[in-house]
């Protein structure tokens, strides 16, 4: 799929950048806003000195492990809950009780349990990301056409075979949506935990720069997180449209 470069869009980005740059210089706002030129210089320096990649690695480690945990638990539980009416009824109240708790609110609790480092972040990310994945998976599994199931059963496909060849493919678009939502929520939680504890990762780096009033370095970290979020989002979207290629573009457009 070839897409033309969005000229208008990138000109607008450029325009905003130039305006901010001019504004900062004209009104001498260097104390409160970093000029884009200074930001990009700081970004380049941070990247080449290895400071930013190191912090990014710390972030990605806890984030990746937490998200993997959330995907594993969310998909497994979602399939179980989605395919059994009894299990759905049995777990409904517990899930409705736990799910609305904003995962960031658990950071203080998790600090008491697991300390300030990667294990704590991993668990909080997993707790936050698991709900959209679980709910979307069970939703997708329940939406599978009963007819397909019956055909597979009468054709002698084993329960495992039915799971792998009927349920999973049919629920995949919904699972993918859940993972995408969980992934962006997980990033938010991970960086927040780092920011609050200040023990490492890009969030802690931001906090240090903020306290030291290193405004360009701070903005460089913000841009980097934005790029990370963008890459994760577009990466998952691209994988999604490749794996669940039979779902139309417009469904992928919804968040």
């Amino acid at each position, binding site marked *: 799929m070839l897409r033309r470069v969005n000229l*208008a*869009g*990138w*000109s*607008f*980005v450029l325009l*905003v950048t130039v305006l901010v740059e001019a504004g900062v210089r004209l009104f001498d706002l260097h104390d*409160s*806003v970093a000029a884009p030129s200074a930001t990009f210089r700081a970004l380049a320096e941070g990247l080449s000195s290895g400071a930013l990649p190191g912090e990014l690695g710390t972030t990605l480690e806890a984030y990746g492990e937490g998200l993997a945990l959330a995907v594993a638990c969310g998909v497994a539980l979602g399939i179980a809950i989605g395919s059994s*009416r*009894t299990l759905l*009824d*049995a*777990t*409904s*109240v*517990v899930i*409705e*009780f*736990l799910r*609305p*708790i*904003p*995962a*960031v*609110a658990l*950071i*203080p*609790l998790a600090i*008491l*349990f697991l300390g300030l480092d990667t294990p704590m972040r991993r668990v909080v990310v997993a707790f936050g990301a698991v709900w959209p994945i679980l*709910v*979307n998976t*069970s*939703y997708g599994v329940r939406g599978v056409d009963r007819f397909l199931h019956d055909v597979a059963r009468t054709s002698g496909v084993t329960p495992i075979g039915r799971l792998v060849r009927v349920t999973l493919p049919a629920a995949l678009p919904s699972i993918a949506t859940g993972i995408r939502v969980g992934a962006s929520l997980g*990033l*938010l939680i991970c*960086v*927040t935990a780092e*920011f*609050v504890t200040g023990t490492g990762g890009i*969030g802690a780096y*931001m*906090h240090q*720069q*903020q306290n030291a009033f290193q405004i360009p370095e*701070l*903005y460089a*970290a*913000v841009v980097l*997180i*934005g*790029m990370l*979020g*963008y890459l*994760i989002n577009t990466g998952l979207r691209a994988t999604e449209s490749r794996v669940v290629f039979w779902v139309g573009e*417009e469904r992928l*457009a*919804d*968040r």
Partner: protein
Amino acid sequence: MAASVARVGRPLLGVAVFLAALAVWEAWARSKGSILVPPASSVVETAWEVWPTTDFLTGVGASLRRLAAGFAIGAGVGIGLGLVMGSSTRARRALEPLVEFCRAMPAIAIVPAAIVLLGLGDAMQITVIAFGLCFPVLVNTLAGVRAVSPEVRDTAAMLQVGALERIFRIYLPGALPSIVAGLRVAVSLGLVAVVISEFVGEGEGLGRYIRLQQTEFDVPAMYCGILFLGLLGYVLNRLFLVGERRVLSWHYGSVGEGVGR
């Protein structure tokens, strides 16, 4: 989604499992005697004492006020930009890269910059909340406007309906179901942003309360704060669903035929 999981055919089973889980927690906590896992009963007791106090309720009120302000601003900007981007291809193409970038940015990323600019008070916190919840509203508004059927668009063009009238009489009502869905997501995201902004900012609030109990090591009180947040999220979501059904009753009666689809 929440509604479908919550659609309990045999609600008693769910309640029984929930009570059983509480009982297991209680027994486990009592046998272990760890300070980090207070028995369920002592959490409930603490909640009974703490929740009705003026201190706690003032905090809740402050959180809700900031959530309301952030919601009004974030939703306003989201719907406004969504309508503009939905009704004009040129505007959409111009704004798309910037919006896509900002949308992928976790709300926490703007916190330090907002602190430097606006300080630790309400202005910073409300900004963070508004930023955190604006994008799902924008994306849903845009999707809703773009889903307005081509026939309706063409008819409006043929009748030479003006741009403003087109936005307010066609796109806005057509996109309303989608917008409302976005607003509901925004409420829970807003609550997350409330907690984040209170962790880092100053002033009372639920997030502040939880953080304070952590540093003072009052574990049951911390559980109380977390539970209250969960309860608040649940109640807000429910209220929204009820309101949604009321506001969109015309839509549910006409799915398939309506302007929106």
